[in-house]
Structures are given as C-alpha cells and as structure tokens.
C-alpha cells in the first residue's frame, strides 16, 4: 500500500471511530450527537482526546463508556458554546429599536433562550429588557442540554477580566446605564445581580431529542444551529415552528439563516441583517 493510500485509510478509520463513539454514547447514555456538524465536532473531540492524553477516538470510546466521570468531562468539552455578553452588539441594538416597540403592546411576554449554554446571552437580554421596562412582564425560559452548564448559567458568575470587553459591547448595543451596576466584583469574579434572574427559569432541554414545551412570543437561538447538521437543523426548526406563536419573533445568529428550514415561507425578515424574523402564519 502506498503512503498516500495509507493516509487515506487513516482518514476513513477516524471517521469510523467517530461514528462508533457517537453511536455508543447514544445507545448507552442516550445523548445524541449523531447529527452534530462533523467538522466542528471532530475538532472538539480532538481537544478532548488531548485533554485525556489519548491519541485515538476508539480509546476515548472505551474510556467514556466505562467511566461516568469521563463522559461528563467529554460532554462539557463538546457542548459548551462560549460566547460573550452582547456578542454582535448591532443585534441587541436592532432588538432594542425594532423588537422592543412591538413587545411593548404585549401584556405578557414568554421568551425562550434555546441552547443558552453558560447564560451570557440570557443575562444580556435580561439587562436589555429591564432597561426597556419590559422585564417584569417577561417569563424567560433558558434551556440547555447539559445540566452542569445550566448550573453555571444559573449562578451568573463570569470572570472579572471579561467585564471590560462586555462593557464596551454593552455600550455599543445601546446600553443606557453603567454596566458595572449589573454585577458585583468579588476577587476575580463578576457576580450578576439576582434581580436579573428573577423571571428566568433555567431548565434542561435537548434540542436534539426533546419536544415543544410551551408557546413563546420570542425564541432566541443564536450560534447554536451552526453546530448541527442539516437534518438536526430541520428538526429544530420544526420544534421552533411548533413553539412560536403567530407574529412571534425568532432570532438566529448573524451568519445563520432559514435556508434549511422547511418553514421559511412562514416567516418574514424583521431585521434582515441581524437575522431577526417574525412568524406570519
């Protein structure tokens, strides 16, 4: 066998190992990563391999199927989406200017953060809604598939070192107060005000396998679907369609679209550049 044929064989073998790992995890633990986008998942799994001091995915399979602590480490490694508060400040600015006026007419607002990860975006939105005078009318559901990640989101504690960057993004997003009012610094942590959490319900929900659980006026799911393959994206779009009321708002990430959604014709772009859509029918 030539060198290049060997190389090609290595590539295929890794694909096979990855399939087996995902299938094994699904069958044994019930966590379904089989429809995660492969290229980004593979990068994360290689990182997990490095952390565990392993060189082959099949070795990782052996480890995580027999060691419940190892599967937890792996889940953290492949599910956490680290984002920042007010990532894409232009989105939050557009939300303030174009969505808030619509919401002001609602007596009661139900909002779903799907795939909230460690909660940065949930707190950012809570701040925005407080400043818009809408927070008291809001019920915010923040969900993620990973229980440990949710615990972190619930705690609302982030590294103090990030606050300078968050402050800048907050100001660019149209923030009206001093950002430091929203947290207390303790050692090297920033602890966010409990009042921001009052109307937030953090709960476990897996976009890959769970169903609709309520009807919402707003669904926020930014930079989550990029990690899913087209099959899983369609599933999630169906779920959103089932969960969004008429004239409800769906907000996706800046580089995401409804192109793969079977329900695209039911939406209009409210702010096209920021991927804020409104359901019409």
């Amino acid at each position, binding site marked *: 066998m030539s060198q*290049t044929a060997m190389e090609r064989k290595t590539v295929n073998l890794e694909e096979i190992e990855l399939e087996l790992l995902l299938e094994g995890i699904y069958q044994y633990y019930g966590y379904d990563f089989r429809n995660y986008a492969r290229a*980004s998942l593979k990068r994360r799994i290689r990182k997990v391999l490095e952390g565990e001091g392993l060189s082959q995915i099949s070795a990782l399979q052996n480890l995580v199927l027999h060691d419940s602590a190892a599967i937890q480490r792996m889940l953290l490694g492949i599910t956490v989406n680290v984002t920042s508060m007010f*990532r894409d400040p232009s989105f939050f600015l557009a939300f303030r200017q174009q969505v808030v006026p619509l919401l002001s007419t609602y007596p009661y607002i139900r909002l779903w953060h799907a795939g909230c990860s460690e909660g940065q975006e949930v707190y950012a939105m809570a701040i925005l809604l407080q400043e818009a005078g809408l927070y008291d009318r809001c019920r915010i559901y923040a969900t993620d598939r990973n229980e440990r990640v949710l615990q972190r989101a619930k705690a609302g504690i982030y590294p103090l070192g990030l606050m300078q960057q968050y402050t800048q993004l907050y100001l660019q997003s149209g923030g009206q107060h001093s950002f430091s009012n929203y947290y207390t610094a303790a050692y090297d942590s920033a602890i966010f005000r409990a009042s921001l959490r009052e109307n937030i319900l953090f709960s476990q929900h897996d976009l890959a396998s769970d169903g609709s659980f309520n009807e919402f006026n707003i669904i926020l799911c930014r*930079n989550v679907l*990029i*990690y899913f393959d087209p099959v899983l994206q369609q599933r999630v779009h169906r779920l959103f369609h089932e969960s969004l009321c008429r004239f409800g708002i769906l907000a996706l990430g800046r580089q995401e679209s409804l192109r793969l959604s079977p329900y695209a014709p039911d939406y209009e772009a409210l702010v096209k550049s920021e991927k804020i859509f409104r359901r019409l029918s």
Partner: protein
Amino acid sequence: MALRLTSGSQPALIVIGASLGGLMALRELLQQLRPDFSIPIAIVQHRHRDLQQQLVASMQQGVRLLLREVEDKDELRPGQIYLAPADYHLLVEADCLLLSIDPPVSYARPSIDVLFESAADAYGERLIGVILTGANQDGAIGAAAIKAKGGLVLVQEPATAESAVMPAAAIAQTCVDAVLSLSALAAQLNEFCEVCEF
C-alpha cells in the same frame, strides 16, 4: 514548473490564508484569476470583529468572480469565493462550509489553521492551500496538515509579502510545494483550473 496533485485529479477546493497586508494581496491575486475560474475558493483573512460587511465589498473591487461572506452550511459552488465572517471560525466538510464560535486559536478567529485542517480532512489529495502575507504564524500547522493528507501547499514568496512572517513560518513548518510571487501564484492557480476542464 508543472505542479500536479498526487491523485492526478482536479482540485476540489482552494483554501487561502492571509493576515496583515492580506486585503491588497488577495485583491491582486483574485483579480488575476480567469473569469471562468471554476474551483471554489475559501479564504480566511484575519480582521477585527467590528469590521463586518466592509471587507467583502472592498475585496470584491476589480475581482470578477463573486465573493460571498459565508453563511452557515453554504454549499461549495464552482467559481465562487467564500470569505470567513468576522469572529467565526470557518470549517469545511465534504459538501458544505460551516462556522463555529469555538475559542480563538492562537488568538485568531477566524483561524487559518482551523480552515486548513478541516479542509485537509475533507478533501485530502484534492486540496490546494495558499499562504499569503501576515505578521503571525497562523496557517503553518494547517499547511503541514494539508501536506500530511496529500494536498499541495503554495506560499507567497516572503520577500514579496508585505509581512514575511506568516509565509516564512509555513515554509519552516513543512515542505511546501512552491514559493511564488502573487502573479506567479495566480498563474499557477489558473493552470490548475485548465487541468480540471478536460
């Protein structure tokens, strides 16, 4: 010099990495591509996250092929040039492009290494990687990954680059296939395209 892919087949994708000085270099390179250039091109140009749409517009000037800032799961189409959006990693799969917000790699997001490594995984011997001007070492590991999977790596001649660090790092990291000026790079890419027409 006739560079050929090991497989003898046509290149399926060209990936290009550029950093400091990259806008001018990319424009110069892309302007010289044939109007019927049919191999898709994916580009990571380092930039600040606040510079969003402007880059596509300014890079498009004088370039006949259509530039597009990638949206998630964009399909690779012949003759299209894809640019990594600010603050996202760009990755390649067998038939589409995808994005991630995973942490920066060597301070960079988008990272050239991330693009190159995923492209090498997806396309192996049918991939061409190009490293242009830049003041950091991003892309060197990715270039080595492309070589390891049987693809070709072309590098801008450091002496002709606005910043020689990045091309020099790639040359130091792996056995690259050619070190060329921008015009010679463009001519070489055009030649690959001729190969793929028979």
